[in-house]
């Protein structure tokens, strides 16, 4: 059989496969479009229900602002246009300053927390006595609601940035530590033994076997840790939190400016979604073999 024959016979098969692929891709695209459509419909239903409740004035307008009120608040607070009395911003800061300050606190706090968490997790997974001592401590810390220890942090570190960073650090660290310890402890013995028998040293095993195998789970832990820090930021900003989204929400609550409260919640929610999407992208990039190896 000549090479040409082989090629001729293989061609329809290859075409079939590419047809299959194309069909599958089209189906996937349709599914994605359907998901997106459904989400949009759900969002529209939710907005409609909100608008209806506000328009019927079931509760006083002060308690349940309409979507339009919140949009107005957004325009004023973000500085796009001044309100009737010519003011922009809230509590002396524009929306992006509030959000930027909160995000900086989250990034710094959970960044330090992540580094410490990974180190702690590695220690817990590899050194027996450390595990015995630290495991219950990490669990203890993980169960504490942030507001409970925040009072102590304020007494110790004052009212400026330090206690806020500490709170976010303490909130973000335990999930990372637990995930790291579990991931490192869960690396298949065969991988390690295999690498060893091929002559790999301690460092090589750690760098080329344990870390790649544990990385996807560690990244999940980091995502969880950042999420916990994110949900704690409002607690961190209960004392002297302006600028900051949490401080803004609190301030607005004092003056019963519900539209700004709702705006703050929406901004927190949306930026949280974006942050999580970023982390998920990192997760896919750094460990594409997750669930396949």
């Amino acid at each position, binding site marked *: 059989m000549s090479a040409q024959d082989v090629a001729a016979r293989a061609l329809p098969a290859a075409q079939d496969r590419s047809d299959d692929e194309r069909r*599958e891709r089209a*189906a*996937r695209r349709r*599914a994605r479009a*359907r*998901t997106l459509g*459904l989400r949009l*419909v*759900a969002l529209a*239903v*939710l907005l409609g*229900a909100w608008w209806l*409740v506000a328009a019927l004035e*079931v*509760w*006083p307008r*002060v*308690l349940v602002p309409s979507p339009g009120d919140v949009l107005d608040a957004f325009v004023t607070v973000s500085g796009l246009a001044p309100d*009737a*009395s010519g*003011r922009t911003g809230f509590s002396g800061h524009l929306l992006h300053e509030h959000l930027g300050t909160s995000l900086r606190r989250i990034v710094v706090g959970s960044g330090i927390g992540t580094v410490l968490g990974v180190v702690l997790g590695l220690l817990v997974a590899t050194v027996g006595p450390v595990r015995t001592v630290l495991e219950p401590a990490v669990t203890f810390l993980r169960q504490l609601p942030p507001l409970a220890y925040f009072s102590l942090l*304020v*007494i110790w570190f*004052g*009212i*400026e940035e330090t206690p806020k960073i500490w709170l976010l650090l303490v909130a973000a660290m335990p999930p990372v530590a637990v995930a790291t310890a579990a991931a490192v402890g869960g690396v298949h013995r065969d991988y390690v033994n295999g690498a060893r028998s091929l002559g790999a040293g301690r460092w090589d095993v750690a760098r080329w076997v344990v870390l790649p195998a544990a990385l996807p789970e560690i990244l999940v832990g980091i995502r969880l840790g950042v999420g916990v820090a994110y949900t704690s930021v409002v607690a961190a900003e209960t*004392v*002297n939190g*302006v600028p900051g989204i949490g*401080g803004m929400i*609190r*301030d607005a*609550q*004092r*003056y*019963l*400016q519900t539209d700004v409260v709702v705006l703050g919640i929406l901004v927190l929610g949306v930026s949280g979604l974006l942050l999580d999407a970023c982390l998920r992208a990192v997760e896919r990039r750094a460990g594409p073999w997750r669930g396949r190896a």
Partner: protein
Amino acid sequence: MSPTRRPRTPALLVTALVTGLGAALTLAACTSTSSATGDAASADASGPDVLRIGYQLIPNGDLVVKHEGWLEEALPGTDVQWIRFDSGGDVNTAVVAGSVDVGLAGSSPVTRGLSKPLDIDYRVLWVHDVIGDAESLVARDGSGVSSVADLAGRTIATPFASTAHYSLTAALAEAGVGEDDVRLVDLQPADILGAWTRGDVDAAYVWEPTLSELGGTVLTTSTQVAQGGHPTYDLGVVTRAFADEHPDAVDAWLEAQDRAVALLQDDPDAAAEAIGAELDLPTDEVTTQLAGLTFLRGSEQAGETYFGTPDAPGAFAASLASAAQFLHAQGAIDAVPDVADLQDRIAVDALARVFGGR
């Protein structure tokens, strides 16, 4: 892939439907309960079934009334409920939400409540106390601050949206210190104490008992700020609906408050003891705190300096209007209500009913 995905479509739809239904049901439930209580209240005209009082831990006659049980005594058929709040802002919220009939709040939360955008449908019924030296601006020893003007460039703590915040802003304006020249920090009294001890703040405008715990140098007091044209009060408010439906209960409430002020003036030790029991404080400490407040009998409140009478309205509405003007300039409220409108928000008729002949 697609066969496992297909079931998600109805699941999502169902979730959306259930959420919508749930919201509708909650809505229906809420409206039906509120109308039910409304019916019950209007059906019984003899006296209210329930009187919900929003109170605060401030040393004044309200706590005497609560401790001695005078309202429960005067309204035997009524379930008197005392609900504690930590700030006038919270009392405003509770009134808007319909969970309080009578409440105690400082004059600046009440001014905000009477102005747009809140525009709460309540009326000012009583002056619990005129705030004097019990709220003061103090500078920390070692901060090098000896006058209000020295505060430029310094950090000052106060609980935002309170009467102290209002007085601080007025004192700074009086001394020619701009809001942008100082750093204002929103802290609750207990947090002020911590920040003060650590040296994080240079000065604080706060009330008793925290004020005494801070020590330091007094820069100004609410007495002085009042002389400068910005008096502050702790006020009693009643919702218009309750006042219209149950004038008898309002009268009984006024009588009880007046009796408490009489006790505060005639037998301060007995009053301090009752208040101390509510605040968990020794009597002599309460006596010190009471010294920084002024209490007014009902007959004084019906005089021209305060509420006045329906025929001859007093100066209080104008005082509220000037407070509103000040708050508007600070951006705390959207618009200044006019004096005639504020006059209508003072329950002079109830005062005249009870104290008219005295």
